[in-house]
């Protein structure tokens, strides 16, 4: 978050002013909402925008607070009708639920961000260790061509495995559906019957894959020994 110290005076640049208004107006309402929740107070806030539109926040609602203020009827009616009390109780329960739900989602978001951060760190570490994991833009032509060969092989194996699982599950379709991840276009199935070849594990790759406990190695012969460096 940008924590610059800014003088409290009218912002000279129009764009900056508009962005500031947007963010601060939103933050103001958030603070007002929290005040109402935490302390059980009733409040109305009116804000005119630089474009002369009006934003308002009110609890229980803007209109009733304004009316109450204007008519100087500062005391909430002591003998509130049962119906009104019911409405209020219902609304308060709603707000309680919403706050709980918001808290839940915000917690999930925070956890997910932490996860993302640690995954990111892992990726960075891997990228330093293994040349083929580096960003594509940093690889040389020979490396790229090699990597492509390995990737194509992997692609075939993934297709083959998918077919295998699909047929076991009795699914008739061998077409990849839109990835759950990206929801983008269809990924066309290659036709994994072409048969992939298994290369023997080279010594190099075995060193790298030291964490593997899978007895079934499919190794894609990245050819460190081919004098890449």
């Amino acid at each position, binding site marked *: 978050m940008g924590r610059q110290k800014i003088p409290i005076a009218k912002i000279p640049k129009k764009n900056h002013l508009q962005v500031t208004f947007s963010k601060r107006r939103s933050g103001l309402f958030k603070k007002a909402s929290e005040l109402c929740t935490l302390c059980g107070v009733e409040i109305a806030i009116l804000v005119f925008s630089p474009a002369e539109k009006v934003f308002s926040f009110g609890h229980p609602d803007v209109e009733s607070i304004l009316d109450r203020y204007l008519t100087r009827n500062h005391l909430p009616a002591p003998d509130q009708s049962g119906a009104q009390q019911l409405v209020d109780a219902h609304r308060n329960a709603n707000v309680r639920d919403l706050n709980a739900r*918001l808290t839940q989602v915000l917690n999930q978001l925070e956890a997910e961000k932490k996860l993302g951060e640690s995954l990111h760190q892992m990726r960075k570490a891997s990228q330093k260790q293994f040349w083929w994991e580096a960003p594509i833009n940093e690889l040389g032509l020979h490396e790229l061509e090699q990597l492509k060969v390995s990737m194509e092989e992997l692609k075939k194996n993934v297709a083959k495995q998918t077919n295998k699982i699909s047929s076991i599950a009795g699914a008739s379709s061998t077409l990849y559906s839109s990835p759950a991840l990206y929801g983008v276009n269809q990924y066309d199935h290659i036709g994994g019957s072409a048969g992939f070849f298994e290369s023997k594990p080279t010594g190099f790759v075995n060193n790298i894959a030291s964490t593997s406990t899978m007895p079934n190695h499919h190794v*894609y012969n990245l050819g460190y020994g081919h004098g890449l460096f």
Partner: protein
Amino acid sequence: MARKKVNLAYITNDSVRKATFKKRKRGLLKKMRELSTLCSIQTCAIIYSPYHPEPEVWPSPLGVRSVIARFKSMPEAEQSIKMVNQESFLGQRITKAKDQLKKQQRESRELEMTQVMYKSLVGDQGLQNLGVEDLNDLGWLIEKTIEEIDERIKSLRE
């Protein structure tokens, strides 16, 4: 400033609640003052609390009256279009947070899948462990990576 994570619920302890009210009200009014000055706009607040018999207002009774008058002079539709209460406001915040969560989950998933892809490349990950959805996403990622490689090869050859 004490940066404790606050539980978004009514404070049941009376003295804590009163102290919180004082502090947060002061902070709120400060924010209003800043917003008003920085953006050169009109704003007002009316607060009813158990701690004051009269409502507390900002900037001043006259200022409030003037802002309310300006508000009321607008057509009804314009008054209500950006009007929120706790329920609608919280609803908006929840929606926004859920969208951010989905986006973050997608990013994590992609990072995870990238890891799986590279591990599979050196035989470090049995594809047998993956379900159909995983394989789908993996296939898509491989395809995308191959495309990137092709583009890069092409540009290097030029």
